[in-house]
């Protein structure tokens, strides 16, 4: 069974530029999560989708971050414009049902904002 795919794996941008990350969850998984992991900290949940609807986006900085999940499958997370403090690893995870112990994580995208 293929795991959660993410691309790109690494991205370096200048501050004020825009960036987008892509996630392809495990086939059939209805729930999709995006996390931000800053160096030395645990992952922080940014947004949770159930199919293509948003369940929780309370910690998403909506002035610059946006996410969508078209057709309830793939998802993109966008930052526009990026700030220095956005440097982090962005993790995508999916689960068959909305239960955290059944999340499968992708390898993450490491973003460096200069």
């Amino acid at each position: 069974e293929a795991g959660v795919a993410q691309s790109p794996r690494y991205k370096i941008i200048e501050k004020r530029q825009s960036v987008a990350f892509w996630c392809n969850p495990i086939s059939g998984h209805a729930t999709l999560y995006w996390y931000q992991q800053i160096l030395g900290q645990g992952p922080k949940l940014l947004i949770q989708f159930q199919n293509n609807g948003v369940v929780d986006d309370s910690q998403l900085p909506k002035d610059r971050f946006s996410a969508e999940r078209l057709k309830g499958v793939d998802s993109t997370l966008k930052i526009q414009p990026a700030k220095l403090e956005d440097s982090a690893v962005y993790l995508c995870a999916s689960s068959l049902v909305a239960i955290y112990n059944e999340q499968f994580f992708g390898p993450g995208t490491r973003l460096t904002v200069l």
Partner: protein
Amino acid sequence: DQQVKQNSPSLSVQEGRISILNCDYTNSMFDYFLWYKKYPAEGPTFLISISSIKDKNEDGRFTVFLNKSAKHLSLHIVPSQPGDSAVYFCAASGAYGQNFVFGPGTRLSVLP
């Protein structure tokens, strides 16, 4: 405001001995607790969990203990193996999965 704390950034143990990783939380509404393991350049993987109605859960070499009155949980790995070397995250959520929070992690090194 850190709701889930792992006060030891790192821990080293000898192969074959017991590893004990600790986690403290502040939110009394947390009802479900999980441990994840993370290798470099990979995403976290779920290890073991416990709900607040239990004080112990065991899965092979891994045991999680929960002390609700102290708002403290611990993960015991017995015996420790070099392949257990990784970062371990404690996480917690409400009864219905709300307010899901990770701790900052503890890096475990198991020395051969």
